[in-house]
């Protein structure tokens, strides 16, 4: 309901609505980008491109599913493009902690968060397609069926990617999450 109004207002060029949508989904979009790319700087650039692109095309927007899964799918596609593009520097190797401390901004809001950092590091150990499924499901709020359709694979494949992915995360993060 709220989203429907937001989209309607957005289409009329309402900037409040644009900001509200950003606020609502910033965390989800960034979560996807960071955990797929393992790099906060690039992730923020991706977020920038996705959101500016979203604003650009707002007037002709037609979303059939949820706004969240739409934005998350856009983010995921953008990340994929970036991963595939030849000019990218590093693949999915997580930055080591010393580098993070140097690079993180003084506020260091995200990386200073221990859990988020460990999660990004553990995620980086997973094959990209497992990560995609996990993020689409948990951050995009998408059902397995919708993910299967999106990724053009069977629902069983999606479910097993999800299961294996979580299993691996569990073993990597074992103890830390329990703590």
């Amino acid at each position, binding site marked *: 309901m709220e989203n429907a109004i937001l989209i309607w207002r957005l289409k009329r*060029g309402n900037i409040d609505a644009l900001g509200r949508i950003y606020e609502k989904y*910033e*965390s989800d979009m960034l979560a996807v980008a960071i955990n797929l790319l393992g790099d906060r700087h690039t992730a923020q650039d991706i*977020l920038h491109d996705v959101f500016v692109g979203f604003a650009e095309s707002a*007037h002709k927007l037609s979303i059939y599913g949820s706004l969240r899964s739409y934005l998350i799918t856009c983010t995921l596609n953008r990340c994929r493009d970036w991963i595939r593009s030849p000019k990218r520097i590093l693949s999915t190797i997580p930055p080591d902690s010393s580098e993070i401390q140097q690079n993180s*901004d003084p506020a260091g809001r995200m990386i200073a968060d221990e859990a988020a950092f460990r999660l990004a590091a553990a995620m980086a150990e997973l094959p990209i397609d497992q990560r995609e499924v996990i993020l689409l499901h*948990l951050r995009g709020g998408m059902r397995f069926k919708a993910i299967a359709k999106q990724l053009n694979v069977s629902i069983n494949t999606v479910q097993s990617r999800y299961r294996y992915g979580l299993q691996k995360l*569990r073993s990597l993060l074992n103890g830390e999450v*329990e703590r």
Partner: protein
Amino acid sequence: MRPSDKIERLIQKTNYAADPAKRKQILNDASQALQQSRQETPAFWRTIMMYPLTKYAVAAMLVMAAGLFNYCHTGSVDIATIAFADISNAMKKVPWMHQVSRGKGVAHLGEQWFGFETRVFASKAADGKVSYWNISEKRIYEYDPNSRHIEETILDPNDFPLDMLSPLTLLESMNKMLTEQGAEIVTKIGKYNGQTVQIQDISLEINNISQKLSLYIDPITKLLIKADIKYVDADGNNPTDGEALYDYPLAGPATIYDLGVPREEMIKPLSSDILFKGQLINSLGNGIKGTVTIGWSCIVQSDQQGFFVVPQSRSKHFYGNQVGYGMNQDKTLGKHFYWKTDQKEDIQITLEPLISIQGRIINLKGNSVNDAKVQLCIETHPGGHECPSTTPWKTEIKSEGSFCFSGVPIGAAMEIIAEKPGLQGSIIIARPENATDINVGDLVLKPLTGFETETTWDAMLSGCVTNEKNEPMSGLDVNISSLGMKILKGKTNRKGQFTIKGLPRDKNVSGSVYAEGYGHIMFKIKIDASELNLQLFPQGYDLLNKPSPGLFVEKWFNTGLVTLEQYRGKVILLQIGAILPIYQRDFEMIQKMNEKYGNQGLGVIVLHARLTDDWAGPVTEEDILAFIKKHNIQFPFGIDDAEEKVKKMVAPDKLHNGAMYSLYDVKATPAMYLIDKKGLVRISPTEKDLEQWIKTLLAE
């Protein structure tokens, strides 16, 4: 609890936020992008000018406008008035229209021909350039006397919506546009070349640009014979003052050479930039003549051996994965194929027999549904479908809810989508391997989220929107948005009336209407026989012509304490809710007013408001100070008071957005108010009338 539950939660709940600087940049750039896309959208002539064809042809617009008058005035009609339907009918019988345009500032001087039956548009410009558009063959031929060759390019719907060359569509789209923009139309009787004519004066003012169009209509043939167009831009510059004359010949140019292009000039083959090339073959591997279609409408022919080249389109740009289809000449064989914009390899398309797909639409109870809209959509890329409006296949709806798509090329995954008010259903068809007909069985229509099957969607909501003076407000969208993702809307006409159809009977729905200067007005209504009559009041309406409630400000950043007393005898422009990074444009306007009228007795006061849904992110005091420094702000800049002490002055539930926000009845930020020399609140001006109001109040 399974550990993975905790991990799932960790992934779900971990909070991420962009760096503050980056966040600002994103919001700034996105806002700009939004503004830009907004500026590009409808502005009278400019809407029409979006299409290169009509850009050449001011004529088309003029003809379109001709029908407007009667469309808007359904009431009493002068005897001499020619009805919209009459003009439409007259235009239907016209095979060709010929226009000669001349005058000052007219973009495309010269002659134009419109072949309504032959679907041809031809133009001969004053500078000698000639173009010939063959709409049916989707070709454009252009001749430039300087380069001395004729260039052939492909016409696609991005250049020009193919059905635009129907006079009726032209009329209707112009009507719709003018009605939405709130044009003023005056009809009178006059003389032209000694003949009595009906003259329609259409005037429109958008963003201070006044545009005037006079149409001369022959009362006997009911056709447009002359049009005058006048407009100036916002600064009063670049005046356009032109006229166009019309006649209706029985025949027009058949080729570009008929427009005076020397016969010896050769047509240069299609643009050499190609998207991709390939060959159409049959199942035996032999080349076969046919066509290749991409983007549902860009068609290229292959040669006898089936080889084809798809050139770069004139203006349509393709990105990433795309779908197209090939067909033989007889349209008995075909196939969908996928291609990428960076496609390097040639594409070989093996044409196979076309198939038919049938099924039946049922509801949850298993009964067949007859009147649903059903579409066959093609997968364009994983997870994405396009439901083309022009299709190579035929769609048939038979009795008992059964449907059949015949002549469908295989080669792509498809989705059948059926819709009916309140209901939706779809079936995905995996990419068919063999060219055999498919029966998908039953397609179940399910109610939209939040509504039961029993809900009937035949109800209608009508009503009226008026302003504070009980005058009708036209051109507003009334939206019902609580129906899942589907938004139903109605637009108010000149009498302020609107009708929204297909609503759930006896259900409570909510919706909203927005009007500039009035903010967002939300409503809830039960859909029964009752009407929805909304009277909108401008922001701060209760305050108008009353003494201002004063200033309740938590902190002044660049001045000492400011009171309205200090401004007595001056006109005050007060802005509430300046959200710094986003409202740059609004703020620039305030600054402009300050520069222009600051020494003539205008005082400017700007307040930042901390809103409960402060979506733009928290604005810190440092941000404000930096902003003041950056823009060298001399007028007082403060922050709206959210303190408890003002609680008693306003309704407690309203307080959360700040004292000023509540006291001045802000309905959309940033809000502006003008307080006159006697300290009375006079108006909450809009961007448009701000300057005029300042001038008026200063003169008092």
